[in-house]
């Protein structure tokens, strides 16, 4: 846990009581800053989601809803079937990020451990696809999907997101894989593990923090992706959250209330996903396994 323990110790080790108090104060101060910085806009969103339009724009902003209303949430569910939308998003994001991480980790492992012909080309290609602005891909991808009859299906989105997330996942994971001490892999090889077993049983558990981080990123990106979701899906019952929310930017008005409510609600599933994966983020595993 790298500096973890020291930092914790520091609280015990400082020379005087005042310094302890000072440190605690500093600590609390930084913490407060981070929390406020991260949460204020979210709080503001939540705050707005409980206000009527009039209050949202009162010239002296109200820091809590003076006339709280659940109307915005009600509208979202009642009129927009937001639950189904969240389900769509969750399904598309989950499947695509799991597959992206699965494929990505396989490829990243091969790329970080083996030398083979065409490796540079592959690496460059992967990066290139990430650099290209998605707008440049929309037209050709749309026509591919149309030709294979995948338009207006979740599969189209899942495929697009895998492609969209793979370069990223691969590059991330290459970094994590190269941090594993090669000795541990050697050891497993000698113990009779095939490359795939080494990968499955040794390497993957060791990069759990990296996998978790990558999965979170992929999930988030898929969850929030707008352009492909907009273009590939036509049935209202298949749309994803960002598309549904974009429907709240109407010609004359932005429906701030439902929009804020939707923002708040749409984070809940993703938050669950993140919290679930956080456990994998915590453990530093390479400690004490290898000397030097």
């Amino acid at each position: 846990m790298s500096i973890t323990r020291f930092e914790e110790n520091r609280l015990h080790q400082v020379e005087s009581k005042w310094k302890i108090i000072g440190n605690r104060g500093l600590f609390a101060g930084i913490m407060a800053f981070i929390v406020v910085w991260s949460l204020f806009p979210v709080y503001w969103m939540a705050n707005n989601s409980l206000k009527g339009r009039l209050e949202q724009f009162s010239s002296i902003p109200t820091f809590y809803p003076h006339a709280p209303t659940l109307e915005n949430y009600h509208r979202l569910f009642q009129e927009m079937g937001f639950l189904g939308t969240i389900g769509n998003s969750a399904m598309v994001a989950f499947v695509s990020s799991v597959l992206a991480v699965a494929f990505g980790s396989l490829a990243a492992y091969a790329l970080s451990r083996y030398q083979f012909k065409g490796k540079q080309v592959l690496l460059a290609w992967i990066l290139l696809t990430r650099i290209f602005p998605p707008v440049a891909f929309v037209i050709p991808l749309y026509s591919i999907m149309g030709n294979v009859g995948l338009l207006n299906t979740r599969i189209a989105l899942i495929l697009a997101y895998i492609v969209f997330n793979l370069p990223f996942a691969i590059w991330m994971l290459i970094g994590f894989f190269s941090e594993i001490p090669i000795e541990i892999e050697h050891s497993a090889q000698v113990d009779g593990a095939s490359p795939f077993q080494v990968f499955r049983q040794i390497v993957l558990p060791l990069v759990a923090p990296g996998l978790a981080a990558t999965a979170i990123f992929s999930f988030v990106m898929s969850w929030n992706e707008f352009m492909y979701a907009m273009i590939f899906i036509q049935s209202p019952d298949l749309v994803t959250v960002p598309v549904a929310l974009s429907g709240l930017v109407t010609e004359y008005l932005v429906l701030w209330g439902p929009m804020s409510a939707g923002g708040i609600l749409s984070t809940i599933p993703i938050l669950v996903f993140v919290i679930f994966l956080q456990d994998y983020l915590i453990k530093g595993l390479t400690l004490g396994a290898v000397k030097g």
Partner: protein
Amino acid sequence: MTWIFLTPTVVLFLLLTVYPLFYAAYTSFFRVDYILDQSTFVGIQNYQRIIRDMNFWNAVKNTLIFVVSAVLFELVLGTAFAIFFNKEMKYRKLFRTIVLIPMLLPPITVALTWKMMYAYDQGVLNYLLEVIGLGRIEWLSSTTWALTAIIITDIWQWTPFVFLMVLASLQAIPESLYQSARVSGATSWQCFRYITLPLLKPTLTLALLLRTIDTFRVFDKMYVLTGGGPGNATETITFYIYRYGFRYFHTGYAAAGSIIMVIMVCGVSFLYIRRAFRTANAK
């Protein structure tokens, strides 16, 4: 063996990226009106036109300002947060989740919420500024502040990205190295400077690369917050490409823009792309 690992990726890429990339490269040599379904081969004319277009260079300038400042702050803040939270503390999980939240919100809601907060009259930021005795700021409507406002929003949303990456790789640093350094007399700062930072370097490089690539493509924030304005104060390259591609449906011209942008990204990130390649080849 290698190929078993690579097959899924290669197959998907062959199916879904080869055609689009070549399509883009190919159309960039045509004058295309997609709506009218007309296209004529024009050689490098699209490129020439783009390079002569002042608006394009303005977009390049905005993009570069945006990329440099956003990425810089995201890296610094993200790393700082990661280090701060990489320790035992009460409710660590809770706090870490809190830090991640901005990244989890749909960009469109994020942008709109900030838009509300930036509002000159009813916005909470100006209200707070006034309360603490500072003047109001024309966040989105002044050419000087608009880009800054967008940068702040991007920093807010994507700092967690760096945070998460750094956090994950902090886990891989053996504690014994810190113990050794501490015993050698290194203070916390020196531990950070000489142990943490160098060991994080590959990760930071990668974060830098990925964030640069992604901020280069930024579009949604401008689109929602300012629509590229006021004037062209917040028009970025992708926005420019988007206009040609999807407002005018001049897909050839837009494709040429994309290619120029790719070349620029490669140029700007040449050094760290090379370093990243080296990491990939390390073992």
